Each structure stands twice: as structure tokens, then as C-alpha cells.
């Protein structure tokens, strides 16, 4: 009986520890980045049907600022997002090589279906296809970090 209680206690402690959002180690980060790029995130070949025009960049920026900025910042580089580095994995800068090396189709896939395990949600249906593609255009033309200020919700 005593042994069973000890095991239950150990299991509880491990469970609680396992729930903590610890930052992933270097090996885990490298492995997962490689796996996401080459295995988990498909749709590599789909082309963006929306051209990279000034209007479409502005439309993407607008959609991004309404929906994505809460976690990615107005600039897509986490500016002003207080929990960006407290998540596991931390929210990446969308200007980073890790993100920019995805194809347009892969980025669309990530926005449509999210990434598990991470905090990235699936947004298909919440945003229209046109908005998602315009966001992909915006992500290819991100402004300098910090140039758009921080999301309004974090400054009140």
C-alpha cells in the first residue's frame, strides 16, 4: 500500500513537471525544425494566387493586425508580446530563417491547420482563404522589428 502511494506521488510530481512550459533544448529544437520542414508540414508546392502588390501587402497587414498580432506582434517579430518567449516552443520571429524558409504553400498550411505541439491554432474558416493568402504576402514583406509599435491590448 505504502509503495502504491509513493508511486502515485512520484507520478503526480512527474505529471506536474511535465506540464510546465519549459523551453526546448537545442537538440529538440533542431530535430523538430527539421521534421516540420521536411515531414510534418506539407503543401510545399502550392503557389500563392495573390500577387505581391502594395494593396495585397496592406490587406495582409490589416488581417494580420486583427488576428495574428496578439501572439506575433504587429510586426510579426513578437514586439510587445509579453509571453512570446514563455511558450514551449517559444513563438518564433516570423522574419527568421526558420519561418521564411517555408514555401508559401507551407505557410498557408500552417495558418490553415496550426502546428501541434505548439500554441499555433488552426485558422481555416476563421479567416477566409483570401485573407490567409494576403497574410502570406505580408509575411514576405515584414517591416523592421518594432516599427509598428506593440499590439494595443498590451499597452492599456
Amino acid at each position, binding site marked *: 500500500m505504502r509503495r502504491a502511494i509513493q508511486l502515485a506521488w512520484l507520478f503526480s510530481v512527474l505529471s506536474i513537471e511535465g506540464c510546465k512550459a519549459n523551453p526546448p533544448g537545442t537538440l529538440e529544437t533542431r530535430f523538430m525544425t527539421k521534421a516540420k520542414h521536411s515531414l510534418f508540414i506539407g503543401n510545399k508546392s502550392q503557389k500563392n494566387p495573390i500577387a505581391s502588390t502594395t494593396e495585397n501587402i496592406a490587406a495582409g497587414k490589416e*488581417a494580420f493586425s*486583427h*488576428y495574428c498580432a496578439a501572439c506575433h506582434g504587429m510586426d510579426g517579430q513578437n514586439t510587445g508580446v509579453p509571453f512570446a518567449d514563455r511558450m514551449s516552443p517559444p513563438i518564433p520571429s516570423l522574419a527568421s530563417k526558420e519561418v521564411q524558409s517555408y514555401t508559401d504553400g507551407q505557410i498557408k498550411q500552417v495558418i490553415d491547420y496550426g502546428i501541434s505541439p505548439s500554441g499555433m491554432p488552426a*485558422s481555416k*474558416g*476563421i*479567416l*477566409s*482563404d483570401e*485573407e490567409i493568402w494576403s497574410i502570406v504576402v505580408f509575411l514576405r514583406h515584414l517591416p523592421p522589428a518594432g516599427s509598428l509599435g506593440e499590439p494595443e491590448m498590451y499597452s492599456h
Partner: protein
Amino acid sequence: MKWKHSALAVFAGSLLGFAVLSQPIETHASPRIIQVTAKRFAFEPAEITVEQGEPVVLVLKSMDVAHGLRIHELNLDIKVSKDATTQAPFTPAAPGDFVGHCSVFCGSGHGQMTLTIHVVKKS
């Protein structure tokens, strides 16, 4: 000689009359007013039919939060504030079915909020 002058005068008068009468007459047909309401997460009606070349004024009324309507093919880009009304004129140039989306993020069903405008050939 006199009859020649008279004939010339009649001919010139006829030409002038023809020139005046053949000028296109400008008409100012009043546009068709179509009222659409926007409410999370649908437009009502969700489909409307108009004729090619028909001047239309779309009156968009929000019943709750801010909404928008964007249809690139018809050069329509309207935004309406919370509980407000706004209007936009347009004249569809070509027939077809054009799907517009809400252009102001309004919540979880925002991406499915569409309005289809069927433009048919003038009967």
C-alpha cells in the same frame, strides 16, 4: 438664283436639325437600392442578383459589431462601424458570380461570412 438660296437654306437647316436630334440624350436612371444587413456571421440576404450595366447602391447595415464587404471584381470595398449603416455605388460591367467576404475581423465565423452577387445579362 433665289430658289438656289432657298434650297441651300433648307438643306443647311435639315443638316442642323439632324445633328441636334442625333445627339445622345443623357439619361439619369436612378440606381437600384439594395439593402443588406451584416450580423455575426452572415450577410442577409446572402445572395443578390443584379443586371449587367445596372447602377446599384448597396446599403450595408451592421446589426452588431464592425463588418466589411470586399469584392475585388466589382471594385467594392465597404466598411461599416458597429450598429451603423454605410453605402457604396457600383455598376457591374460583366456577368458572373462574384463572392465577397467580410473584410473586418469579427470573430470565429468571420472567414465564412460571404455575400454572392450574381450579375446576369440585361434582358
